């Protein structure tokens, strides 16, 4: 699992690998939780290389989104069609912010969250 991190202002952009499976998921989870513990509150997860995700990987997105729900923001971008289909199937498109491109993600995360 290769994880790239790129800090732009107060936003941490994390680019993940092509396979997010049972072996890779704990590595990503540990890295993202370490970033949050280290004080990061605005995360963009760039999924452009991602071609395959299973439930172990999906669980990481859910866990991190829950963790940041009240204290930060997470925006997911650049899902391949097959991966987007899985996110939709599992209901994540309703509870997570998912956009098409990294540029869009940076724009969305810079805006104050919409009033509930």
């Amino acid at each position, binding site marked *: 699992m290769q994880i790239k991190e790129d800090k732009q202002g107060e936003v941490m952009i994390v680019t993940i690998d092509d396979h997010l*499976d*049972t*072996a890779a998921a704990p590595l990503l989870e540990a890295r993202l939780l370490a970033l949050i513990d280290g004080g990061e509150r605005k995360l963009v997860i760039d999924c452009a290389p991602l071609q*395959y995700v*299973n*439930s*172990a990987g*999906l*669980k990481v997105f*859910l*866990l991190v*989104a*829950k963790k940041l*729900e009240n204290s930060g923001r997470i925006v997911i971008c650049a899902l391949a069609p*097959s991966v987007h289909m*899985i996110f939709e*199937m*599992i*209901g994540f498109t*309703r*509870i*997570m912010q998912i956009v098409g491109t990294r540029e869009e993600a940076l724009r969305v995360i810079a805006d104050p969250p919409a009033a509930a």
Partner: protein
Amino acid sequence: MNEGSITLRLQAKVEEIERLNRQVRQFGDLHEVPSRTLYAVNLAIDELVTNAILHGFEDAAGQELIVRLEASGGELIASVIDSGKEFNPTTAPLPDLHAPLEDRELGGLGIHLVRSLMDHVEWQRTDGRNVLTVRKRNR
């Protein structure tokens, strides 16, 4: 799609799953299985095998799983056989997908994916083994 079948044996270890996924994709390429069918069945096998390895055994050491894959009659059929605890994924409760984020449970995602992705999911308990068969039609 070219008809054919393969039987794979693997140890009940998480480290085996990557090799299994590779073999499933190789089978698919060799038999010219349509990519959507292959993707869905590969994911379903991954979920079922992961589940059996992580939750099926008190002690997974030395345990073995069998995965059978068959391309036939316009569909891809996969069976996962394990001698772990009795578990019927066709009746297991599913997570509430409409729950707000704070109430979403972390478990149950894999079984939900299998049931959503496959056209047919069948479970049998035979001779102390779980025999799970999933089917996906080419379209």
